[in-house]
């Protein structure tokens, strides 16, 4: 098929698709990005002179729920990849919709949390905790938002007549890599910010 021939043109001498390799290199660079943000948060942890302090306002049950939602979105994402790879387009589309909804729900939790913190007087300029917390979790939220748009574009593409078929499963696979990376970053942030005491 034309699509298969087109995709075959992306193979490197290693037998690795260069688009997938590019995504892995991009994710490796993202490790540095989030590593810097997490380092900054840890350096200023416990150094705030004025409140609100993390122990006063962090709502662990709420964030645990949003963490569960993001974890489950990884399950739906991997099932979407499974559907694409096995030619089960209905499964792929359904799971993409599920992932988009779960990702949007996670963002809803984050918006609620940010607004609540604003109401109790914590913002970017309040103290070191506010500055580093909003920067780190905000950038993660932006990544989730980009992921939702990425998956939505795939879903819309799959509805075109010449859209995502089994031959182009790699597109979904690559998007899945991005989504799972956003999930593993949150696994680290959730532990460091919410679970480990100040």
């Amino acid at each position: 098929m034309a699509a298969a021939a087109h995709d075959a043109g992306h193979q490197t001498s290693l037998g690795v698709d260069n688009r997938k390799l590019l995504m892995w290199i991009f994710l490796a660079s993202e490790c540095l990005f989030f590593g810097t943000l997490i380092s900054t948060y840890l350096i200023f942890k416990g150094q705030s002179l004025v409140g609100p302090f993390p122990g006063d306002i962090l709502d662990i049950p709420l964030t645990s729920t949003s963490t569960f939602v993001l974890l489950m979105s990884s399950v739906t994402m991997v099932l979407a990849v499974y559907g694409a790879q096995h030619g089960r387009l209905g499964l792929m589309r359904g799971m993409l919709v599920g992932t988009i909804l779960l990702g949007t729900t996670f963002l809803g939790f984050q918006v609620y949390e940010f607004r609540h913190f604003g109401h109790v007087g914590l913002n970017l300029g309040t103290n070191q905790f506010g500055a580093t917390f909003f920067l780190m979790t905000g950038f993660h939220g932006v990544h989730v938002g980009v992921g939702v748009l990425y998956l939505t574009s795939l879903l819309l593409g799959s509805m075109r007549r010449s859209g995502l078929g089994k031959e182009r499963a790699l597109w979904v696979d690559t998007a899945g890599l991005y989504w799972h990376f956003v999930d593993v970053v949150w696994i680290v942030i959730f532990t460091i910010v919410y679970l480990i005491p100040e």
Partner: protein
Amino acid sequence: MSHEASAGHGHEEHPPTTIRQYVLIGIILAVITAVELVVSYYPPGSLEIPLLLGLSAVKFGIVAALFMHLKFEHKIMTRMFLIGIVLAASLMIAVFALFTHDDTDNRVLPDREAITAGAGGH
């Protein structure tokens, strides 16, 4: 043979994981998160932080190996990702050293009660 390596030779192979196994992995991840919460609410003394970091690393490994299919991919993908992680860890150590070296006198928790009392007195 990895999926990508074989794909380059005209075959189509995918990770051998089934839908049932993926769902089971999701349940395991949720259970680990629940255990983390229990550890957080009922801390086992000095083991709390190592335990939480360990559980977090296990979740990270499960997602990377089984959901991101690193276990089944060409090794160059794993190497690329590891390079990023090692560089990030090095960067974190360097940043910590930069901000804490020769500054140990100031690396103590602030006396918030005194600050609050002082602010109340004015």
